[in-house]
C-alpha cells in the first residue's frame, strides 16, 4: 500500500512549557492522512486546530511526538516545497499585480519566465480570474482576493494544500460559491487537502473526513468519514444524508464540549 501523505503520532504542543502560564494546546494527537483525502479540522476556538495545521506545515514545532510528511520530516517537506498555504487573510502583496502575486512562489522556485507566465495564466483561469491578471489586490473583492491566494498556493502543484479558515471572513453566499470552486479544483489537481474551519456545513460539504477536536487541551474527539457521493454540487447540500452527517458532526462537537463541563 502507498505510504500515507501525513502521519502524526502522539503529538503534543505546549506553549510556554515550564512556565506558570503553560498552555497544553495539543494533547496526544494521532492522525493519518492518505493521498487525495480532503480532511477538515473542526472544533471550538482554542482547540488547537490552527496550531495542528501550522505544525503540519512546519511553521511551528511540536513539543513532543512524531510527524512524517511524504515519508520525511515536516521540515524537509517544507524545504522540498510540498506545501501550498492559504490563510484566513488572503495575504497578497499590495505592490504586486494579481498575476505577479500568483507568480511569487514560482519566482522563489526559479521557474523559467515562460513557464511562470503559462502556469499563472492557467491558475487564474482555474479560479475564474483570467481577466484580472493586471489588477492590484486592493482593486478586488475579498472573495476574489482569496481566490488569488488559492491560485498562488496551487501554482507550483504542491502535494499538500493547507488551508487555515480560508473563507472565515467571507459572506455566506461567497463562501458557498468558493466551496464549489475548491471542490472542482481538488477534483482536477488531486492534491491532498487539510482544511481548518469553524463551519459544520462547510466541513461536511467539502471533506472526505471530518476530524472533530475538543479544547483545553486540544484533542481529537471523533473522526467522521463523510461518505457522500462525488462529485459534489449544490444539490449535495439538500440530500438527507448531508443533514444526517451534519447532525453527527454537531453531536460530536456538543459531546466533546459537555465532557469538559
Amino acid at each position: 500500500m502507498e505510504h500515507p501523505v501525513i502521519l502524526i503520532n502522539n503529538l503534543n504542543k505546549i506553549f510556554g512549557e515550564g512556565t506558570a502560564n503553560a498552555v497544553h494546546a495539543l494533547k496526544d494527537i494521532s492522525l493519518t492522512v492518505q493521498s487525495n483525502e480532503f480532511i477538515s479540522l473542526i472544533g471550538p476556538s482554542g482547540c488547537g486546530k490552527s496550531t495542528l495545521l501550522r505544525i503540519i506545515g512546519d511553521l511551528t514545532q511540536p513539543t513532543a511526538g512524531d510527524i512524517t510528511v511524504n515519508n520525511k520530516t515536516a521540515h524537509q517537506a517544507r524545504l522540498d516545497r510540498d506545501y501550498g498555504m492559504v490563510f484566513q487573510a488572503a495575504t497578497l502583496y499590495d505592490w504586486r499585480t494579481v498575476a505577479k502575486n500568483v507568480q511569487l512562489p514560482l519566482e522563489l522556485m526559479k521557474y523559467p519566465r515562460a513557464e511562470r507566465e503559462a502556469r499563472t495564466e492557467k491558475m487564474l483561469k482555474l479560479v475564474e480570474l483570467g481577466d484580472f491578471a493586471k489588477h492590484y489586490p486592493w482593486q478586488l473583492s475579498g472573495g476574489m482576493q482569496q481566490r488569488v491566494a488559492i491560485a498562488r498556493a496551487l501554482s507550483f502543484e504542491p502535494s499538500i494544500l493547507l488551508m487555515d479558515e480560508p473563507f472565515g471572513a467571507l459572506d455566506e453566499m461567497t463562501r458557498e460559491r468558493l466551496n464549489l470552486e475548491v471542490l472542482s479544483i481538488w477534483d482536477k489537481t488531486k492534491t491532498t487537502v487539510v482544511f481548518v474551519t469553524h463551519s459544520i456545513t462547510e466541513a461536511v460539504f467539502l471533506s472526505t473526513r471530518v476530524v472533530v477536536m475538543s479544547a483545553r487541551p486540544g484533542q481529537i474527539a471523533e473522526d467522521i468519514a463523510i461518505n457522500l457521493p462525488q462529485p459534489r454540487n449544490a444539490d449535495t447540500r439538500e440530500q438527507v444524508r448531508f443533514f444526517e452527517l451534519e447532525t453527527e458532526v454537531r453531536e460530536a462537537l456538543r459531546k466533546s464540549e459537555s465532557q469538559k463541563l
Partner: protein
Amino acid sequence: MAKPTGFLSGFKPALYFLVIALLLVFAWEGYKLLGAPGGKYLRGTAPVKVGDERVPGPLCDSLGWCEVELPIRTDDRAMPPIKDIVLTIFEPPRRGSNDMLLTILFKASLFTLQEALAGFVIGGLLGFALGVIFAHSNLLERGLLPYVVASQTVPLLAIAPMVVIWLGGNWFSVAVIAAYLTFFPVTINTLRGLRSPEPTAVELMNSYAASTWEVLWKLRVPAALPFIFVALKVSATASVVGAIIGELPSGIADGLGRVILNFNQYYATGPEKLWASILFASLTGMAFFLIIAVLEKLLVRRQPVDLV
C-alpha cells in the same frame, strides 16, 4: 468631463501653492501697512511731529491706544518690500559686478544642491544599510541604535568643524556633513518599514522555504518602501540645510552658505539680498523634495490612500 478634470488635477497642487504664495505676499505687505512710519508702532498710535512738537497719534486721542508696539518692526530693514526683494534678484549685487544676483544665486543653489545630493545618497545608503542590519539583529539594534540616536543630539554646528578637520575643507566634507543629517530618519523608517509586514506575510514566505535574503528583497523592502520614502522626503530637505551649514567651516565659496553669510554681514545696507538668498535656499530644498516625490510616485505602487 472626467478627462479634462483629471488632466487639470495634476496642476492643482501647483495652483494651490501659487495661491498660498500670493496670500503670503499680501500678508507681508499688509502687515507692513499696519506700521506707522519708523515701523515700531501701530499706525495711528505713534506720536506725530507737528512743527517742533510731538503730539499723540489720532487713535491715542479717540480710543486711548497710545504707542502700541508691533511684535515685529515693519520698516524696510526688518521687512524689505517684496518688490525690492524681487527687483534685487535682477540686479548685480555690487556696483561693478557683471552678474545679476539671479545668476549668482542660481549657480550657488546648483552647487549646494550637488553637495546635498551627494550627502543624501551617502546618508540614504548608510541609513538603509543600518536599518537592514538592525531589522535582522536584535543584538546589534539594542547595542547600536542608542548611539545612532545620540549622534543626532550633537549639534551639527559642533560636528561640522570636526568633519572639516578630519577630511579637509572640500566638497566631500560638505557631503558627509549633509549625510549626517540624512541617515537618521532613513535608518528609523527603514527599520520600521522592514518590520511592517504582517506575520502571515512572512509565514507565507517561510512556507515556500524562502531564504532570509529572498524575504528581504521580495517582501520586507517592497513593504518598507512607503516608509522609506517618507524618510527620504525629510532627508532631501535636511540634506540641503546640512550642505549650507557644512559649507561654512569648509570655507567653500561657491555655494549658498557663503552667499548667505555674506549678505548677513551686509544686511544693514541690503536686507533684500539676504531675503532673496533665503528664497533660493528654500526653492533648492523644495526642488529636491519634488524630485523624491516624483520618484515615489513612480516606484511605490500602492492603494491610493495616505498610508503613513
